[in-house]
């Protein structure tokens, strides 16, 4: 996979975790914890952008969604349940194996591919929605990666991107806390120097030709163990929505 933004070392780290993707109490537990909050945001943004009624049985029917860095399919499956035609892409072949097996057990049809955003672009694929969740901080060249993702969007298409802010608090919580103290995530999952500030992310999205339409923080409440969206607190995890002008 030459000419890709994927960092080989990063891929190997997740492959080691692959079988545990769907264990709500295992190493992917923090991701399962965060998932309802991420899904709320994603579903709301898609419904607003494409004027869909969320009460409908399959509100996202007719939309083609790419889930880049799909892992075990924690986001791909919900999107498929909501009616979208989903392509789940992950550079780790083992992840794709796990994701395929799980989707089959869930009775969902999802096009999982052991591939990269760059390869999808080279193949001429295009999407209404592109999800790049918790991936930007793991790629070798975020600027090039975001430009490639933007190129995969159809005119009027929506990209949703979440990542970690490069703040001392993010280091304390995500790197020191989650990896080294709590052992929620394997040590080395995150490299703080790769984190982007919301401003940097917005700039990269704009450079990629997208218009940033929304930005929210995702905040963890240690007492309830739940995540919630926040208008103001983008100091650790945050998510942005950007549209390709149509």
């Amino acid at each position: 996979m030459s000419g890709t933004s994927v960092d080989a070392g990063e891929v190997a780290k997740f492959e080691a975790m692959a079988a545990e993707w769907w264990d709500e109490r295992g190493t992917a537990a923090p991701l399962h914890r965060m998932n309802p909050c991420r899904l709320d945001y994603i579903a709301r943004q898609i419904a607003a952008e494409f004027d869909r009624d969320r009460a409908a049985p399959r509100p996202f029917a007719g939309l083609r969604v790419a889930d880049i860095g799909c892992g075990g399919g924690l986001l791909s499956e919900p999107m498929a349940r909501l009616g979208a035609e989903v392509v789940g892409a992950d550079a780790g072949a083992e992840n794709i194996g796990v994701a395929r097996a799980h989707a089959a057990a869930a009775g969902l049809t999802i096009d999982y591919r052991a591939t990269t955003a760059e390869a999808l672009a080279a193949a001429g694929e295009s999407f209404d929605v592109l999800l790049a969740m918790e991936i930007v901080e793991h790629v070798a060249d975020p600027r090039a990666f975001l430009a490639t993702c933007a190129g995969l969007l159809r005119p009027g298409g929506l990209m949703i991107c979440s990542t970690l802010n490069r703040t001392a608090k993010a280091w304390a919580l995500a790197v020191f806390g989650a990896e080294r103290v709590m052992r929620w995530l394997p040590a080395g999952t995150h490299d703080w120097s790769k984190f982007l500030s919301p401003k940097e992310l917005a700039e990269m999205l704009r450079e990629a030709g997208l218009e940033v339409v929304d930005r929210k923080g995702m905040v963890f409440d240690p007492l309830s163990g739940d995540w919630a969206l926040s208008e103001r607190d983008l100091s650790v995890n945050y998510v942005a929505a950007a549209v390709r002008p149509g």
Partner: protein
Amino acid sequence: MAYDRDIVIVGGGLNGCALALACARAGLSSVVIDRLPAEVRGGDRFDGRSYALAAASQRLLAALGLWAPLQGEAQPILEIKASDGRPGEGAAPFFLHFDAAELDEGPMGWMVEDRHLRRALLAAMAEEPLVEHRPGETVVAQSVEGMAAGVVLGSGVRLTAPLVVGADGKASGTAERAGIRRTGWDYGQTALVCAVAHERPHHGCAHQFFMPGGPLAILPLTGNRSSIVWSERRGLAEHIAGLDDAGFLEALRPRFGDFLGAISLAGDRYSYPLGLSLADRIVGERLALVGDAAQSVHPIAGQGLNQGLRDIGTLAEVLAEARRRGEDIGAGQVLERHRRWRSFDRAALALATDGFNRLFSNDNALLRLGRDLGMGVLGHLPGLRRRFVREAAGLAGDMPRLLKGQPL
């Protein structure tokens, strides 16, 4: 694999039907497996059974579109009087008096006959394409395979769904098959339940007389009729239950008093041994329990169905939100939200109902005095009273949307 339905609901009683309708409003399909045949479930003869619906429960029914057909058949409870007494001695000097005027939300509750509630639910289910009703069927086996929960019916039909809900009462087979144990205790009491007709109007007032053997509740039905829930020590209750109608009325009269004039029976008589029965867990692998299957409580304040409807309001909202996000509705994480939301309510309820009854059915003179004073004191504290009234009306706590009368 593909699922047959979103939810398999085991139990076609009030809770099972209400859950199916609530979930359908959120776009979730279900099949309701009912042990009873359709003609029994849909019978329209008044059998003497009725429910005291708390205000929150009435709102849930209204939010589901079920209140319109019931309203004409429901008796509002405008006032509750609770007093301490012994047969033949009359009421103690202090008594609790709650008035609907103390609530901004209208009546404190409604009395609805079982037959009207059942028929309203069945009619609504028949019109709901997302609900399939399978009367006269029993579940003979249940399992979880991969991501699917499945049940096998007596007829051999096999149904799969991401989630199975047990709404099959306090002897829940669904809970038992899932290996969920129950904790409970027996109060050594039996509730004698019937409806009576009386000469004088009740003016929408409900009475609760706390007798040494247990409470006697007189709850207003439409017309000059009232529902009786009379709790007695087991031995005496069994004796009274064994009497003929004339003998039963003879035993009831000195306790009931003559404030409503002459009384006569207006339906069948029932007796229910009283006990508290709590499922150790209300969720399991691709499984949730609601209603009496989750917690069967002493009917002292008519809280059984009301608690069941709180289960339904909560579970339906949790599942509706999960569906809107595209989550797997049977995932452990989703069911955990339901468990967490219900846990405080369940613990508080078990303690409150149990403590309330022990306090009020004891003939110890000292306790009696404390009780009289306690009730007198309670009657003079507006803030505490209001909380008590709101609790009885089911309006306290972090409420699911349906119980606030809002759509999901």
